[in-house]
């Protein structure tokens, strides 16, 4: 990364030649076609991951060159990363919540953990509003 511009005096902006920008656009264009091509074969989760990875590559190019992060202040990059960090927390905690939330057992109507089928403590979920089946008579 180039050294930071001075914070005093006139604005010292890094001026990239136009062909750099045209080159970035060409890369973005090729990546778009690649993304369309790859996702035309449905391979489940792999397709989604490939799409998001290519999108992230494109977004990084835009942020680094079009948005001048590669020649600007590091603090601006940190601001962007902080927002992405918050997005990561949001996604992870939501995933944790959904993966570990109890569901209503069809057998006896109590709330159980989906993995271990043990009694699930606390929490409300929409599953609680489902009609509960009468408890089964124990097998003799």
């Amino acid at each position, binding site marked *: 990364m180039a050294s930071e511009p001075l914070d005093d005096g006139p604005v010292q902006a890094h001026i990239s030649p136009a062909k750099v920008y045209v080159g970035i656009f060409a890369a973005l264009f090729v990546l778009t076609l690649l993304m369309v091509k790859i996702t035309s074969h449905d391979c489940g989760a792999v397709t989604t991951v490939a799409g998001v990875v290519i999108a992230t590559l494109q977004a990084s190019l835009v942020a680094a060159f*079009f948005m001048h992060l590669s020649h600007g202040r590091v603090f601006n990059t940190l601001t962007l990363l902080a927002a992405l960090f918050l997005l990561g927390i949001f996604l992870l905690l939501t995933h944790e919540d959904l993966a570990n939330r109890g569901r209503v057992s069809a057998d006896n109507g109590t709330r159980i953990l989906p993995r271990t089928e043990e009694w699930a403590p606390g929490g409300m979920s929409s599953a609680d509003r489902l009609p509960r089946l009468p408890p089964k008579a124990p097998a003799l």
Partner: protein
Amino acid sequence: MANVSNAVSARPQVAVDSPRDNPSFLQLQFDSPAQQFDAAKLGMWLLVAAEIVMFAGLFVAYAVSRGTDGDIFQQAHLQLGRGIGTVNTVVLLFSSLTAALAVSASQQGKRNLTSVYLAITIGCAAVFLAVKYFEYSQKVQLGLLPGRCFGHPGFEGCIGDAGLSAQPVSVLGLPVRANMFFALYFMMTGLHGLHVLVGMVILFWVLLKNIRGGISAQYFTPVDIGALYWHLVGIIWIYLFPLLYLVG
């Protein structure tokens, strides 16, 4: 006490402001153009961060819905045209290029070239919104607009005869819960479309300022800041396009 008075007297003397050091565009709360530029940039990046966090809510909603109804999303996303989505993506990427070139031209003091690039950017934004309009109207005609009209072919027909008690019915062979996909589609692309519209207004204001001579090689901040906003709009679309149009 002697130390304190020494410290005060040791402060460097501020030079008397000359027009060169204190140009007309420099606001009085800033010491130098560079400081003013950095403050503006940081402010814009904070807005970009806030926008990302706002869209994060929608992206998480998308992830949750897709986690529960993956198969339905897979079926529903086939209703969106890959071709038209690709065209719009390229249009938006191209407008990002012209926005970046506008900044570059303004940094070099090429006023007319800056205006041309800004005008092309605004034109691309208009093309994007026009394509979006045709996409939306086609979806609404098919009865894919979420709400009580979901599942009613011909949007007009559902008004009046479908009360709150009316059960949603399958449309185009899609499962009833496909309305979640279209709710997210309209919400995410709608909020993005609003940003495109706002971006057009901002870039038009910058264009007017440039034509009137308010932009120079020493003061190109409005072009730079406006372009930053425009690139944010592009980045959000870069994620919306694969998630909605390509993989569902």
